[in-house]
């Protein structure tokens, strides 16, 4: 066969080939195999005179390269098509729903506690807790609330017996911590935990609730530092542009005692239903530790002073997330709980 004719045929054959890997392989064998026309031409070259050999050799080799290239091209084309076909067969409707696994959640009160704990840990505090069945001594007397003190009426108490009760505040932990410190060490603690009051449950009262108390005792802590600390907390919980203000109040374990308001995060101080038009929302009670408490807990008030504060985790959760009924925090309706991831 003439070289030129062969070249034309090869080109035609590869071009007209149906996309099929098997026929392609056959075609390759047909042209490029050991018994194929190209190989044959190469074999026949030994009969040619020497001076013609390079010329023809060059041509045949070029044809061989062309055929190989055509084949490779075609092969890739076929393989690509096959891959495409397979991919399109495997394609899924990605908008069908994924596997449903029950979405878990952390209770909002623990979310609040962890947030507050982390904030105070960052400020050098340790986290402490104590027993919920507490002695009258730790819950009241060490906090400057002797028997018959009018402040006892402020927090009606569940009693277990004459001397034991369900703690009405986690401040009881503070007395434990101070006494354990032996009156010498600085104290910097945050005490989250459950407390109890003999209150009928309604939208704003709960007989069980979650208190977070803080206490700092050292030689030079001031009310200005209390304000600084609580400002940091208010901003962490309610937004960076919050301000706080102090108002006079009374707690037997602190003197001076204050109520702390945070500027309303809903209306930014203009006055709205959340802040009852005042621009401020009451969030917690605080004060400088009463010297009687320091004394009873083994600290010399001439050398040491302290500040303390107590905030309800429920109050924070309700304000922060717009929860209206405190009882819903204990009902655990999963439609509410699951919103806290």
């Amino acid at each position: 066969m003439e070289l030129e004719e062969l070249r034309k045929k090869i080109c035609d054959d590869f071009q007209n080939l149906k996309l099929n890997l098997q026929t392609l392989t056959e075609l390759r064998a047909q042209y490029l195999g050991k018994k194929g026309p190209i190989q044959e031409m190469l074999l026949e070259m030994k009969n040619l005179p020497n001076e013609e050999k390079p010329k023809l050799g060059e041509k045949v080799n070029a044809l061989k390269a062309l055929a190989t290239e055509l084949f490779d091209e075609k092969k890739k084309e076929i393989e690509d098509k096959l891959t495409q076909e397979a991919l399109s067969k495997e394609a899924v409707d990605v908008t069908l729903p994924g596997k449903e696994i029950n979405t878990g959640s952390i209770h909002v009160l623990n979310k609040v506690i962890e947030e507050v704990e982390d904030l105070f840990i960052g400020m050098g505090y340790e986290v402490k807790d104590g027993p919920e069945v507490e002695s009258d001594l730790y819950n009241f007397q060490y906090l400057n609330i002797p028997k018959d003190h009018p402040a006892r009426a402020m927090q009606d108490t569940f009693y277990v017996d004459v001397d034991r009760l369900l703690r009405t505040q986690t401040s009881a932990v503070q007395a434990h911590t101070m006494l354990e410190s032996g009156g010498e060490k600085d104290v910097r603690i945050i005490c989250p935990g459950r407390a109890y009051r003999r209150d009928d449950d309604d939208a704003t009262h709960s007989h069980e609730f979650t208190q977070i108390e803080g206490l700092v005792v050292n030689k030079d802590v001031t009310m200005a530092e209390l304000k600084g600390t609580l400002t940091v907390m208010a901003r962490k919980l309610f937004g960076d542009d919050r301000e706080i203000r102090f108002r006079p109040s009374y707690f037997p374990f602190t003197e001076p005692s204050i109520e702390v308001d945070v500027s309303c995060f809903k209306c930014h101080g203009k006055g709205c239903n959340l802040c009852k038009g005042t621009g401020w929302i009451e969030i917690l009670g605080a004060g400088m530790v009463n010297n009687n408490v320091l004394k009873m807990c083994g600290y010399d008030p001439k050398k040491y002073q302290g500040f303390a504060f107590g905030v309800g985790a429920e109050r924070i959760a309700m304000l922060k997330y717009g929860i209206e009924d405190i009882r819903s925090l204990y009902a655990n309706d999963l439609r509410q709980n699951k919103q806290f991831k």
Partner: protein
Amino acid sequence: MLIPISVLKKYVDIDIDIKDFVKNFSLKSAEVDSFGPFVDVKGLVIGKILATKDHPDSNHLHITTVDTKDEIQDIVCGAPNVMVGKKVIVAKVGTELPGGIIKKAVIRGVESCGMNCALDEIGIDHKFQGYEGIYYLDDDAPVGADPLKYLGLDDDVLEIELTPNRNDLLSIIGVAYDTKAMLGSKMHIDFTKATEEKEKADIKVQTETPNCMRYLSKVIKDVEIKESPAWLKGALMKMDIRPINNVVDITNYVLMVTGQPLHAFNYDKIKSKKIVVRMAKEGETLTTLDHQERTLTKNDMLITDGKKGLCLAGVMGGLDSEVEQDTKNIFLEAALFNPKTIKETSKRLGLSSESSMRFEKGIDPKMTEYALNLAAKMFKDIAGGKVLSGGYSFDNIDMSDKIVSVSLKTINKVLGRTYTLDEIKDVFTGLSFEYSLKGTTFKVSIPKRRPDIETYQDLIEEIVRINGYDKIDAVIPPSTSSGHLSNYQAFVRKIRHILSYNLNETITYSLTTQEKATYFDNKEYGLVKIMNPLSDDRIYLRHSTLPSLIEVVKYNQNRKTLDNFLFEIGRRYTLDSEEAILSGILTGTISNTLWKGEKEEVDFFYVKGLIENLFNKLGVKNYSIQKPIDALRGLHPGVSASILIGREEIGFIGRLHPDAIKYFDCPMSFVFEFSLEKLFAASHPLKTVKEISKYPFISRDLALVMDSDKSCEYLISCVKKAGKRTLTDVKVFDLFTGQSLGENKKQIALKLIFQDMNRTLETAEVDDLVEQILSQLEKLGITLRS
């Protein structure tokens, strides 16, 4: 405490906008509960009923013709008490009342141009009117004028909430002192006495008990008992006190203004002309004003005429010496009694009043005389009485002031602000505290009205509040120590975060019933019982959280949330200890892809896997989950297991017993509960990594047949024992319990993994090992499936 601003202004100047004053008050004195006009209605006028006739089309309506000076109009009125000539409060058309805007209306064919008002229609409590129908003003009320102004009710009222330390604010004068301090304004107290008659009071006063510390009195003769003038009635209403008659009203008014309770006796009933204060005899009786005969004890204090009781001191007057409509002469008492005695009597008899409450909290002794004189003057001015001179009294009160010192250095050190001496002086002067200054140390005389001030800390509070809390800067304290969670606290948090991936955390009440508290352990030992519970379902602290979790499942299922996967980190309470426990309940479908036909219901092994994964994640060593030695209470005996650390049982998992499901009326659920503290003790952080073999492993699958009462764990432990060190892992991949195996047999398929740390294993040696394992198993009655 309710403070009518007009009454307060009699005692102290308030020169700033009243709203600013109220804000100041809340920031410097006490919490403001409310503030606003006593009556929030504008445009009311005084009218006179000129004529009245029956409505032609009604048997209870009247048509009144009312003169309001500017006009004379007809008003249809449904009140039963319409009377010609009476002065009334008229709300004309357009007036906005609490119940709505008054409109011109045609009532059954008759046009009505307004409303004749009862007090409750303008927003005043009905109790202040005392009768049905429209409210009548005194005959001297000027027609066309503002009735609120006439009644003294065009006033703002400040309601404050008092903390137990600020009993000094239980009087208008007490509030005036704080007002003066915060505004730097002037107070006005007129200490002059009423002009007295030449006639001297001929009554002797003595006490036989130290519980009466002071007793001052006045005799006022020829008193005319009648209704009080409008301003006095108005003042009392604003303080939520119902006007009765001028005598009662005067004593009540003076009480509210000064904080000093007064008692008025019918002078003519004190025949002995003698007052003896003594403790009652055990069993002695006195009929009090409310017509109750009271049996007294030796702890009650009596005011007597020397023989019989006239008045239960500080608590309630006696009926016999009561001031009545025809009483002419009055014996007026202003006394100081031991707060404890009054408190006991008032508590025992359940009699609490504005007076007894003030006696209990303690009274400023400097007000006693002022109160008596103020009342005497009012009796003279309002009731036409003659104040007799003299009046026996006695006094066992130490009037000297307490001295408290504080230095500028201490003030600055506590508050963290640099005050000037002048700022401090201003506060003390404002509060009318006398002081002397030596260097930078203030020696302050604390007036009797402020018994709450005992230490320098109390003085610092006065300084910071009056000077202003807003003057304190917010200073971030320097952090001197590094804070952290304890390992245990971090452990508990980690558990919460792991479980919260697909379980929902709950928080439930710890107080419950006895049956629920002990349902899952049946142990009454150490049960914490509340002495004074509020309700039957909250008496005991729980031993297990599970009953509460079951309630949560029911709550949610009732609201159509059927799948519940809950956990709670709670406590198990006994009298000697509180143990942290982790509890959980799972019921329903834990995962599904329904459109693929895949759905996974919770079962025992899901819960077991959950616990095992948790334990592995926490690095808990040496745990096992085993068939319980004794049946677990509340759990299915065949589908429950103990959780052990070593040999110690720390908790359980299992399916609820059908009896429990019936008892709680709840769905079939799987539960777990175990001690967190014991789990923590068994958890160990990774210290060094285990070496990984570089050589390939060889695996062999064996289907082994054994007695069905033998446990899978037994099989695996037998295999491991026989397989020695080269057997690195055993996995269960099938369970078969068909009849073809024979009676009471089961087949468990295991995949055995063999691997050596130091070399590639030969097939032949693995075959040998398998043979050895099988022959060991055969001795134990476990055979290879043929």
